[in-house]
């Protein structure tokens, strides 16, 4: 009776020796099911879903707004009769901006609370941390934030943009504007580094030059050197993948150095309406952003969403792309469950492909094979009122391509 179970590749390692020694202490061995999923508890007239966001720590700033919009969607759905006749009971957990805590809480939501699906995570690091938990338990995660692509898990639905729905359109826009050279500025973590690799490959294939590439440690607020370099490089535009607080310091430095949207426009992919408020339009006026949704996006679905959000959380609270993607995620899940006629994870996955939904950002379609969604890319400009208005869009939803397989210049990136 061994304490370890499973395939043995390396017998006689230290671990085995210790395990053998431990066998004397006595323990139960096989009494639980091995590796199979924990099925959701749908016995009553309610169904639980998990909400996994950082409510404390450095990421709370962004993730709290996502939690708010998920709650909004849940309440709306409940008010309209619930899902398959069952009311949704949200179970909230705090990821505390700490990746192992995310994994721990994901495990709790799945195995203790037995939720039917989990909505949440923001950083790639937190998603990477929980991914094995969802795969092991065969449970569903809806991830609502734009990210660096290069991932496709059978148990995750990605409702934010992948790179070909945000970065690539951003570059297309710059190219169309006649920008020949870019400078890349980003925070030092996975998303900017991956994004910049894509940008460099794109530039090479499209006759653009990358004049420089600089990374600031996460949370860094000292941009004197980077702005100096950017300024002396005299690029046509800057592609900005900085995150959080760094954006504030970067744009203040940028403005003080005499640079602005006319002399050297900046395209940012992590600045939404909420961030604009924290930086100030004084520093951001007319700068560009690349997203799939703005508070100003036209359409009845968005007008309804914005009104409902402001009614619930306050008129001064803006809505933004990740919030919208989270809101949409809950509705998409409802559509999938309804189509499947069951909360069973495998049935829901099978039903997912092709589901469409008239979202605030416009029509979205779930892409079955990648479990991403087709979205319309939108380039926006920061206005004096702190809102972002669209200056360009891709015309139609872009099919998600997390590994950029349909782009010839991107071969070798993944």
């Amino acid at each position: 009776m061994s304490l370890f179970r499973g395939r043995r590749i390396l017998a006689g390692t230290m671990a085995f020796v210790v395990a053998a020694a431990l066998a004397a202490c006595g323990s139960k061995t096989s009494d639980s099911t091995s590796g199979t999923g924990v099925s959701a508890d749908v016995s009553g007239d309610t169904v639980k879903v998990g909400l996994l966001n950082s409510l404390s720590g450095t990421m709370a700033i962004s993730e709290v707004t996502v939690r708010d919009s998920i709650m909004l969607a849940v309440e709306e759905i409940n008010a309209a009769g619930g899902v398959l006749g069952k009311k949704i009971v949200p179970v909230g957990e705090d990821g505390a901006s700490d990746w192992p805590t995310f994994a721990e809480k994901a495990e709790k939501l799945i195995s203790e609370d037995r939720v039917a699906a989990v909505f949440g995570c923001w950083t790639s690091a937190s998603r990477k941390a929980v991914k094995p938990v969802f795969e092991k338990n065969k449970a569903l995660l809806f991830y609502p934030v734009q990210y660096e692509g290069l991932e496709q898990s059978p148990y995750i639905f990605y409702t934010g943009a992948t790179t070909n729905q945000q970065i690539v359109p951003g570059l297309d826009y710059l190219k169309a504007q006649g920008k020949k050279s870019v400078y890349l500025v980003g925070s030092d973590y996975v998303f900017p580094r991956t994004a910049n690799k894509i940008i460099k490959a794109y530039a090479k294939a499209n006759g653009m030059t990358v004049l420089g590439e600089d990374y600031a440690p996460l949370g860094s607020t000292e941009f004197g050197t980077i702005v100096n370099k950017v300024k002396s490089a005299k690029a046509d535009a800057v592609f900005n993948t900085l995150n959080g607080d760094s954006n504030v310091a970067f744009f203040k430095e940028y403005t003080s150095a005499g640079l602005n949207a006319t002399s050297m426009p900046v395209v940012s992919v992590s600045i939404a309406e909420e961030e604009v408020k924290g930086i100030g339009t004084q520093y951001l006026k007319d700068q560009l952003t690349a997203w799939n949704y703005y508070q100003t996006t036209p359409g009845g679905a968005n007008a309804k969403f914005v009104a409902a959000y402001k009614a619930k959380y306050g008129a001064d609270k803006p809505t933004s792309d990740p919030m919208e993607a989270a809101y949409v995620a809950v509705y998409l899940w409802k559509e999938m469950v309804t189509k499947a006629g069951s909360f069973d994870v495998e049935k829901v996955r099978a039903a997912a492909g092709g589901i469409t939904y008239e979202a605030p950002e416009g029509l979205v379609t779930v892409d079955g094979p990648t479990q991403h969604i087709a979205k319309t890319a939108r380039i926006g400009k920061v206005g004096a009122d702190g809102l972002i208005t669209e200056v360009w869009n891709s015309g139609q939803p872009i099919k998600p391509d997390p590994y950029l397989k349909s782009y010839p210049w991107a071969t070798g990136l993944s």
Partner: protein
Amino acid sequence: MTVLFGQLFTGVSIGAVLLLVALGLALTFGQMNVINMAHGEFIMAGAYTTYVLQQTITSAGWSLLVALPVAFAVAGALGVLLEVLLIRRLYARPLDTLLVTWGVSLMLQQAARDIFGSPNVQTRAPALLTGNVALPGGITVANNRLFILGLAVAAVVALTLALRLTPLGRRIRAVVQNRDLAAVSGIATARVDRTTFFVGSGLAGVAGVALTLLGPIGPTMGTNLIIDAFLVVVVGGIGQLKGSVIVAFALGVLQATGEYLTTLSVAKVIVFVAIVAFLQWRPQGLFTLRTRSLA
């Protein structure tokens, strides 16, 4: 050449920020041996003071000017509160002040979140401070950086003069050099401690006002700066201001040079290695106050 000068100026201005943040620590840590981890939150308090004032004083320029003394008072008052409630009991245990004030800093951050919300807030900078000065040779120098440099220099001069010339300053120095002797000479050491802490914390508030021109204003804005500032005081040497001044600018220039030649991340590591190496050479810092039994 332009870049070289630009980088030099960047280094000096990094140094000025470091100095502004470290100056208060040079008093509370350097003179009183209290490791106040909540110093960063006093900076935050100063920045939020600017934000609150801007809600009532609409002129960005005036609100900034008014914010300087008000933030000094607000942060100073927080400092006195901390001293009276906690630090006073811990003078014999400097390491424990570190842990206690870290706990305080956690609570202050959460309080800021509850009052002002988690997201950053914005303040407006006066138009004068968002521009820059063009020097011959295509060199530009940002006005806000110049302002902060000036503020740092002014703060150092004012503090130095205050310590040298005013009766209070003499009392502070007396207590630093020999607490017992100062006490028997009729100096109310407890009150001097409180005043020192007020001034040291108040300086953090001033730094907070200045930082609204450069970076984010949010609950965690102080935490990024605090370690660097402590390193400045450690390397500068306890008990004297000039060490901190020199080291702040030296580290600023080293950081800027490192950033230019390598990357920001590597520059941080270079600075750390340089500090460890420097402490091999002068373990007590650049300048030390020599007394027989330095506590």
